[in-house]
């Protein structure tokens, strides 16, 4: 795979990992604030950086069945949220390929 530096974001508001401050996403790629995770409120993002994606598995959520992967911080390996691979309900398919980050695990960084 080779060596890579972590990516750094630029923008009005940058969200980082609360544990190690690794850049994860900016407010410009946020789609929705109206999600819930295991630790309370969560955000849906169009794209995130510096995460490792785990193996896919199916989960029953309040909005139906989904295939998701946990996402981990590339530096400190904290589980930050998940990625939607597939939504079984047609109305939920807009989430496919998008990422959830838990608000309580995020911190504003520069």
């Amino acid at each position, binding site marked *: 795979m080779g*060596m890579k530096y972590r990516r750094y974001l*630029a923008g*009005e508001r940058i969200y980082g990992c609360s544990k190690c401050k690794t850049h994860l996403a900016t407010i*410009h790629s946020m789609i929705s604030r109206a999600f819930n995770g295991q630790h309370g409120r969560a955000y849906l993002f*169009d*794209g*995130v*950086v*510096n995460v490792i994606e785990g193996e896919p598995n199916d989960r029953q959520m309040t909005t139906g069945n989904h295939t998701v*992967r946990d996402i981990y911080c590339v530096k400190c390996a904290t589980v930050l949220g998940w990625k939607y691979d597939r939504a079984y309900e047609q109305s939920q398919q807009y989430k496919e390929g998008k990422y959830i980050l838990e608000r309580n695990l995020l911190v504003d960084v520069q």
Partner: protein
Amino acid sequence: MRNPEPEPDSHSNLSSSYDFVPEAGPSCVTLDKAGHSNGINKENGYSTPVSNGTVSNGSSTMGNGLAKHSSSITRVSLPGTTLYDDPYLDREEFVRLVIQSLRDVGYIESAATLEAESGYSLEAPEVSEFRQHILRGAWADAEPLLIELGVTDADALLDARFLIGKQKYLELLEARKTTAALQVLRNDLAPYSTALEQDELHALSSLMMCSDPQDLRRRASWDGASGNSRRQLLDDLQHYIPSSTMIPQRRFSTLLTQSREYQRQRCFYHNSPVNPSSSSLFSDHTCDKESFPRITTTILEVHSDEVWNVAWSHDGTHLASASKDKTAIIWRIGLEAEPSSRDCIAEFILRDHPYPLGCLAWSLDDSILSTSADHLILLWNTKTGALMKTLENHAETVSALVWLPDGSGFMSGSLDRKIILWGEPRESWNDIAIRVTDAAVTPDMRRLVAVGMGYNPPPTLGTLARANVRDASPPTVSNGNGNAVGPRPQENRMIIYDLKTGQVELSVHMEGELTSVKISEDSRYALINHAPDEIHLWDLEEFRLARKFTGQRQGHHVIRSCFGGIDGNFVISGSEDRNVYVWHRDTGTLLEVLEGHGLGSVNSVAWNPRNKRMFASCSDDNTIRVWEAPVYAGELLRGFSISASEPEMIGKGKGKVKQPWAYNYGGL
């Protein structure tokens, strides 16, 4: 056949053409003491009519005696004007250069004989007169001769006189004849100086204040009347005098030096020192391709994950490696010339890194190894393998570690936009314009060259468009592929700083990602890896891109390169296609693509600073390869069948060192 033909008329010309040249060095000694040509001829076992009529007149101007000597030489008349067929090789020029060389080394008799036999004289009498006047400091006698020597252009004449006047002035000052010096300044220099020379004149007049001759010589960067300054003046005056009139000093030697330099530049595999014993005028210099390190002689396999960097100790006996497996290893590479009898062992495995390692640097005396693991810098005792210190001053990944050439400490650069000079006192450059991805300091301590990602200040809202990302094949690591989260393309920069002041000398925008900087030993060039697929050689004196090296693959990974070999003659780089690439630095010619590493990238390379026929490379295949010239291994290879196949991989985790010279011949 050439027909010698007597030409009695030429004798008088020849006699006047010869004169005593002070810089002939040994000549005056030989002739004054050795009883002249009779003695010389006996020594040489050389007996011709030449020896007749050579009379010592005991004076320092030996023209007369030698002129008589030449009277018995028969002038050889040759057709044409060239030496051979080459129209550019003028016979007269060639012969005059030979005469000059002969006289320089003291073969005065031979030179005179050649002058007589060829009918060409080294130079006109006024030239040597002029030279003597300058070397004796007889300025008033020298000046009028300038016109006779062909300095006819009015401006050139003024310039030449200015040079002479300046020397005269300095010598008077040196002799503490201030009044006379002042007169020279007023009468000889000031009236003729151009606007440009006004500044110099100003500087010259300020030298009046010098406390003593020593101070004067230092401040004027001038070595005094008894030093080399008059000879230097002659060299300077040479610019105004046609070279056919006054041949530049030691011209033959200059040409031969150029020839040697040309041959060296053309020698693509040049990797042995050009020393007096290995060079000959009789044959062109060329280095054997076989002495170039292009076969793997040792594979170091202890790391359990990708190896990202390697660095040699300054004494060339140890190699340090940095791995994704969160360890660094100090390897002892034995000095035995023959790889098979050499011991290569993992002396210390430095384990206490909480993150994968990126950088390595040996202190000047090799007693400390500094490593970087993410934002941490660790200092290790290389004799005991003990951790000495962990430095936590950086907030983001440390991407550059370099010990400073003056011994004052080391420098670290980081993606947190800080460069820290760890000396006494510690100096931190904060909030610089880039997130540093690598940095290096020139050996002369004048400059620091840093590369990195430009820091974009927050953009204004409304300029951003949301992009749709729908990645069909989910990657294991998401980098967002740029468009979803990076509102702008990443801007990359090379910045050249003045090391002492921290001032930016040059800041250049570059398109691709920059991952490595190395500086040439002469502090002139910076070698920079530039994605995609290019390595740039920047001229730090002229602030321009001097050359590009292409062939290697570099997309999104940190790939490093370095200079190598005698005089830093080669450029080598890792590559994402698992090969090592080698170029000739001065032409950019790709010399070798070395295969051997397994799948993934060759991440870094390092040339042994002592053994110029050895370098190391490290790869995603968890191994480090040591590359050497086939000359030693060649002996061994004869006893084995050579296979072009991949070397077999050694069992994982055994911590073995393998020496596959027998079956992995790089060139096949």
